[in-house]
């Protein structure tokens, strides 16, 4: 047993934390949130330069990491700073699927920060069920609708799931392909997504199926849990500072036991969340991977709600304002519950997998 980060990962963490603390300030992020693109291409390029994307891929794939703990280190830092640029969707989900399909040239461009991707998988009415695919593949022509597709507008390529008979396959669709339409909109917690419709849109079969989607989703679950952990660290840190400085009734409000004990509970739960992320990353390659991932996502969902709500409540009104750091962080934490299965979805999956 060893719970220390490797030297390389420690260095990556330090570099990222320093860069984001200096560059990704609340004011900078509020500018990004208010922009039409909903992301900064400068930040994207600089983070790619620092190795954020390369760390998500194995050496064989052209990167220098790719393991669960590489993913966890990167996304914990992105979460701590409330980064809204689509590293999870474009780089990790999109990139790792293309790597699995052997599209090494595209992956190389992606690692360099030059190509954006989007996974167009979920459909209206499908909620979190991975096998809910009604989009039809007629040969290489795709027809259907995809729901809440992250990064759909910025993507140079979409990876689209479609059904051909009983088989679900993944197809690569070029931006601007015939019959492809994207209706974009902003997201409450930052970034943009879109509704994607395909009408006999040409796609290139990637030779990937439902198993590959499950593998990519497993990576995304590690990333989402780690990102939320980072955000919760920021939320608890801000709350602790506020309790020690905000004075009411002639004393810092953190000296009221009713609040002090609740702050202690947050710190206890934060350690639970940290361990849950370690479990998710550490069991990523194990045979009972999905049970561990569901356990982690369920715990992060429960703790996340507690941390976000308690952090806001203990701050009071100031936390309700757009311009205060916690508002954005709290939104990131709660909205993470709406990705890759929510608390209840993973509770059920844990029950099913742990009873088996």
């Amino acid at each position, binding site marked *: 047993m060893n719970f220390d980060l490797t030297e390389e990962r420690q260095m990556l963490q330090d570099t990222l934390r320093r860069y984001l603390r200096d560059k990704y300030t609340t004011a900078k992020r509020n500018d990004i949130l208010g922009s039409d693109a909903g992301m900064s291409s400068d930040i994207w390029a600089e983070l790619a330069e620092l190795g954020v994307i390369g760390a998500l891929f194995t050496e064989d794939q052209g990167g220098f990491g790719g393991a669960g703990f590489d993913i966890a280190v990167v996304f914990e830092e992105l979460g701590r700073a409330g980064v809204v640029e689509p590293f999870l969707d474009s780089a990790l989900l999109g990139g790792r699927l293309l790597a699995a399909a052997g599209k090494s040239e595209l992956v190389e461009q992606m690692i360099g920060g030059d190509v954006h991707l989007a996974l167009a998988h979920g459909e209206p009415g499908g909620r979190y069920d991975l096998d809910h695919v009604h989009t039809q593949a007629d040969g290489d022509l795709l027809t259907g609708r995809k729901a809440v597709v992250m990064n759909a507008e910025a993507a140079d390529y979409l990876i689209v799931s479609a059904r051909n008979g009983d088989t679900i396959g993944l197809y690569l669709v070029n931006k601007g392909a015939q019959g492809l339409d994207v209706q974009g909109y902003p997201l409450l917690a930052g970034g943009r997504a879109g509704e994607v419709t395909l009408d006999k849109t040409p796609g290139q079969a990637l030779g990937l199926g439902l198993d590959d989607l499950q593998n990519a989703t497993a990576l995304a679950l590690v990333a989402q849990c780690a990102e939320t952990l980072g955000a919760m660290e920021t939320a608890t840190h801000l709350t602790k500072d506020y309790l020690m400085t905000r004075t009411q009734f002639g004393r810092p409000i953190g000296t009221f036991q009713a609040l002090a004990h609740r702050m202690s509970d947050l710190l206890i739960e934060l350690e639970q969340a940290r361990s849950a992320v370690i479990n998710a990353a550490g069991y990523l390659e194990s045979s009972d991977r999905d049970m561990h991932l569901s356990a982690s996502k369920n715990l992060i969902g429960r703790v996340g709600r507690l941390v976000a709500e308690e952090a806001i409540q203990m701050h009071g009104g100031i936390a309700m304002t757009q311009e205060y750091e916690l508002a954005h962080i709290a939104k990131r934490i709660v909205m993470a519950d709406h990705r890759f299965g*929510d608390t209840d979805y993973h509770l059920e999956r844990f029950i099913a997998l742990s009873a088996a």
Partner: protein
Amino acid sequence: MDLSYSPDELAFQDELRSFLRDELPGDIADKVRLGADLSKDDMERWHAILNARGWLAQNWPHAFGGAEWSAVQRHIYDVEAAAAHAPRIVPFGLSMLGPVLQKFGSKAQQDHWLPRILDGSDWWCQGYSEPGAGSDLASLKTRAVRDGDHYIVNGQKTWTTLGQHANMIFCLVRTDPDVKQQEGISFLLIDMDSPGVEVRPIILLDGCHEVNEVWFTDVRVPADNLVGEENKGWTYAKYLLTHERTGLGGVGSSQAGLAAVKRLARAENHNGKPLIQNPHFAARIAQVEIDMRAMATSNLRIVSQAAAGGAPGLEASMLKVKGSIIRQEINDLARRAAGPYAMPFASEAVEGANDTIPDPHGAGPVAAQYFNNRKLSIFGGSNEIQRGIIAKVTMSGGA
């Protein structure tokens, strides 16, 4: 004990339902149902319709032009209005200032201000909280200094709800800095058009402009606008807060919110079945509904007791805590029910924006409402302050 409505109350319920069906404008009800932002005009139109029927000032005595409804009648209105997607009545003039003027205002103040609340001549907002005086309201610093037949006011108020629409603000101001905090506060009515008053918007975390900062720089206020006695403002403020709290069980909103969650959970599918049949989600709905049913009865008990003359201080605190928890739980269920479609930012709810929500089941801006309603346990005396009141009253024998 009898939990059923009397024949008179049932007739009243029927009358209300037809009124809401015939008189509530469809465009306003649609906005409320979809969680869109109401304009000032929307709110004023609805007030005017209620006022024409004599139902705007529901808790005011007949003598002041009110409906003088019983506790049960007000409860029936809350439930029916929320179910019909009627806007809430803007409370600042009607529920807050009105009762204070009726109890503590001069005859001249009553004659002048009360009719103007009813006919919409004045839009009031509340000047209580300050940046350094939130939960600890009595530490407020906005200063009013007597200068002949005027007061000169300097300071800053914050969290001023709908202050952007208001032409009048009732304020707690410090008139004597040298006595115990609570004994140096006065209750002052200030014209927002006076020179030196500035309103600055605060954008909330859901993107909406609902609250404001209000700044006062050498604002001259006629001394006639002092309510009651100088330095007795804290007494009036406490009276007002009690009135503010009696509505805060929010039974009508909770019932309408839960009905919306159920509609959504019937439309959403999970593993090929309606979400409402999923045991975990069904259990979540059932738990909050069970709590809500008990709270609805608590609400009626407490409001009836208040109507009979009992001061509802302690019980109002209890109702505020429980009611806010239940409403927030329902907001949490709504965002869960919407699934991935909770994530889009429904910016059509924000003035000037025109993005629409793509959700096929019309969930509306459920996540934005979830975040917005975190305010329920913060404003009007946070739940921590309410718990403090409950503990103080029950364990040391006095408030």
